[in-house]
C-alpha cells in the first residue's frame, strides 16, 4: 500500500508526525499546557472518529453523541468513587455500558428517519444529562472529582502526562484504523449503501436495520472509551460533559474535517480546538494596531467569529477541510 503524494496525504502525515513529537517539544520547552491541550484534542478526536463512523459513513446524524463521553466518564468516576480503581475493571465497564446504552437508543431511534432521528438522539442524551444532574450521591450538577486515575497494575502509569498522551494517541490511531477497516469491509459497505439508498439495500436482501444498529453500537462503545479517557484526563466528571452543545461540537469536528473520510475527524478536532485557543489571540494581534486597547475586549468575544464560521463551512465547503484538500466536492 503506497500512498500517493497528494496534498491531503501530506497534511495527514505532517499532522500525525507533529502529534507524535509534540510531547518531546512540550517537555523540552516547558510548555506543559500544550501537552494538556493536545491530550484533550486527541481524546475528543477519538469521539469524533466514532461519530464519523455513523454520521459520515452511515448518514445517521446523532445529535447526542456526547452522551457516551458522559457514560464512559461516569463509569470511571463512579467506580473510582466506590473504590474500584483498576482500569481493567473501569474501562471494560465504560465500553460495555456505552454499548448497551447505544443498543437501546439505536434500537428505538433507528426506526425513525431524518430530523426525527436527530431529535430523538438529542432527547436520549438529554435524558441521561438530567439523570446525571439528579445523581445526588455522585455530585449531581457539580460533578464528581476522580482522585486517582485508572490503575493498570504498573503496565502504564496514567498519572504520567507523556505516557497518558501516547496511550491516547495510540488509541486514536487504533480507532481510525478500526473505522477504516470497518467501512471497507462488507459490513461497512452495507452501512454505506444504506446511507445512499436504504430501500434498495433492503430490496436486494440486506436487513439494513441490524447493520446500522451494529454500527451505532460500535460508535457508542468507542466514544465511551473516549469518555473514560477524558475523565482520566480532567480528573473530573460532571453532567456538563454530555451537554448537548458538546454533541454539537462533535458534529462540527466531523463536518469541519470532512465527513466520511478516515482522518477528517482528526483534522476537524485539531482545527476546532486549536481555533478555540488561537482565535482570541489572533483577534488581539490583528485588531490591536487598529483598535488599540479595545482589541483585548474584542478578543473576549471570539465566539462571535466562530459561529458564523460554521455557517460559512456549511455554505461553501461541503466536504470540509478534507474535501478542500482532496479537491473534490462531496454531495
Amino acid at each position, binding site marked *: 500500500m503506497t500512498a500517493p503524494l497528494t496534498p491531503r496525504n501530506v497534511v495527514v502525515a505532517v499532522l500525525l508526525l507533529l502529534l507524535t513529537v509534540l510531547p518531546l517539544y512540550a517537555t523540552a520547552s516547558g510548555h506543559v499546557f500544550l501537552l494538556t491541550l493536545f491530550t484533550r484534542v486527541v481524546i475528543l478526536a477519538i469521539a469524533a472518529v466514532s461519530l464519523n463512523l455513523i*454520521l459520515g459513513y452511515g448518514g445517521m*446524524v446523532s*445529535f447526542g453523541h456526547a452522551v457516551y463521553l458522559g457514560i464512559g466518564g461516569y463509569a470511571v468516576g463512579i467506580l473510582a468513587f466506590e473504590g474500584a480503581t483498576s482500569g481493567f475493571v473501569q474501562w471494560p465497564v465504560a465500553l460495555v455500558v456505552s454499548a448497551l446504552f447505544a443498543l437501546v437508543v439505536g434500537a*428505538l*431511534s433507528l*426506526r*425513525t*428517519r*431524518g*430530523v*426525527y432521528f*436527530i*431529535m*430523538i438522539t*438529542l*432527547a*436520549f442524551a*438529554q*435524558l441521561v444529562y*438530567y*439523570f446525571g*444532574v*439528579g*445523581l*445526588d*450521591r455522585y455530585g449531581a450538577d457539580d460533578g464528581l472529582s476522580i482522585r486517582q486515575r485508572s490503575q493498570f497494575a504498573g503496565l502504564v502509569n496514567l498519572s504520567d502526562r507523556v505516557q497518558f498522551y501516547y496511550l491516547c494517541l495510540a488509541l486514536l490511531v487504533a480507532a481510525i484504523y478500526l473505522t477504516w477497516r470497518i467501512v471497507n469491509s462488507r459490513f461497512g459497505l452495507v452501512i454505506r449503501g444504506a446511507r445512499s439508498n436504504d430501500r434498495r439495500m433492503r430490496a436486494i436482501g440486506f436487513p439494513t436495520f441490524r447493520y446500522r444498529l451494529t454500527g451505532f453500537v460500535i460508535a457508542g462503545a468507542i466514544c465511551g472509551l473516549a469518555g473514560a479517557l477524558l475523565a482520566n484526563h480532567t480528573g473530573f466528571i460532571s453532567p456538563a460533559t454530555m451537554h*448537548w*452543545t458538546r454533541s*454539537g461540537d462533535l*458534529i*462540527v469536528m466531523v*463536518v469541519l474535517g470532512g465527513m466520511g473520510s478516515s482522518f477528517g475527524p482528526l483534522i476537524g478536532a485539531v482545527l476546532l480546538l486549536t481555533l478555540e485557543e488561537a482565535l482570541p489571540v489572533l483577534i488581539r494581534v490583528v485588531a490591536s494596531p487598529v483598535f488599540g486597547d479595545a482589541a483585548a475586549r474584542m478578543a473576549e*468575544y471570539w*465566539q*462571535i467569529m*466562530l*459561529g*458564523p*464560521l*460554521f*455557517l460559512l*463551512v*456549511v*455554505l461553501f465547503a461541503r466536504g470540509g477541510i478534507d474535501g478542500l484538500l482532496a479537491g473534490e466536492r462531496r454531495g
Partner: protein
Amino acid sequence: MAGLVPAIHVFLRSVSQGVDAPAKPGHDEREACFPNPRLMLLFVEQCLNGLQFGLLLFLLAAGLTLVFGIMDLVNLAHGSLYMLGAYFAATFAALTDSFVAGAVLALAATLVVGMALEVVALRRLYGRDHLDHVLGTFGLILFFNELVRMIWGPAGLSLSLPMWLILPVELLPGLYYPTYRIAIIVTALAVALFLYVLVMRTRLGMLIRAGASNREMTGALGVNINLLYTMVFGLGAALAGLAGLMQAPILTVQIGMGENILILAFVVIIIGGIGSIRGAFIAAVLVGLIDTIGRAFLPDLLRLVLSSRAASTVAPAISSMTIYLLMAVVLVLRPEGLFPVSSK
C-alpha cells in the same frame, strides 16, 4: 386498569397523611375515598401551572413547526430568538417604563430580527441537508449568545411586572392564582386561535399551505415565495419572542435561556408530528402537564414503592426525564408523531 384505582387511593392518602405515616391498607376507607381538599387544590394549581407552561411551549413549538413544515428547515437558533425577545422586553420596558409597551416593542423587534436573519443567512440553507441546518444554526446560537453578552453583558436582567398583573385572583374558593399566569394562558390561547384562523381561513394562510405542499408550482402561479417565506419566518420569530418575553418576569433573563426550552420545544413537535400546528398544540399541553405534575407528585408516588430516602434521591432525576420517556414511547408506537403530516 382495575389495579390502578386502589393504588391511587393509597397514594392520595399517603400524601394527605404526610410522608412518614405508613399507609395501612384497609385501615381507614373513608379517608381513602375523600382525599384531602387541600391536596385537590394543590392538584388543580399544578394543572394550571402545567397548562401555562405547556402553552408557553406551544408558542415556541408553533414557530418551529411552521418553519420546519413549510421551509423544511431545522432551526436550532429558534431558542436564540426566544432569548432576544426576553432581552428586548427587559430593555424596552426599562426605557418606556411600561410593561405592555415594552412587550409590544420587543415583539416588533424580534419580528424584524427574525426576518433579517432569514434574508441574510437562513434563506441560503433551504433545500440543504438537515445536517447542514443543524450545523449552521448551531453556529448561529454561538453567535447570538456572544452578541447578547457583548450588548447586555454577562449578568442577567430582570423584568418586573406592573401591579395589576402581580396580584393573585381567587379562581375557586381557597384557590388563589397569579393574574400573570392567567394572562399567559389567555394570551397563548388567543395566539393559537389566531394561528388557526390565519393558516386555515385567510388568503395568506392558503398561500402558506400552498407553498408548503409545492414550492415551485406556487411560485410559478405568481406568488412571491421568497417574501412569503420571510414572512413565515418572521411570524415564527415573533412567536418565539412572545414566549421569551412572557417567561422573562418568571425567570431571569440570561444568556442561554433559550437552549434548554428549545429542546423541550423539539420534543413537543416530535410528539405532535413535525409540521402540524394542531399536533404541536396538543403535545405542548401534554408535555407541560406531565412535566409539571410529574415534578410535583412523583416524589410522593415513588415513596410508595421505594424507601423514603431512595425516593428523594431518585425522584428529581426521574421527574426531569418523564417527558423524554414520553417521547420515546410515542416514537416507538408512532414514529411520525401523533399527528403526522401526510403529504411531504
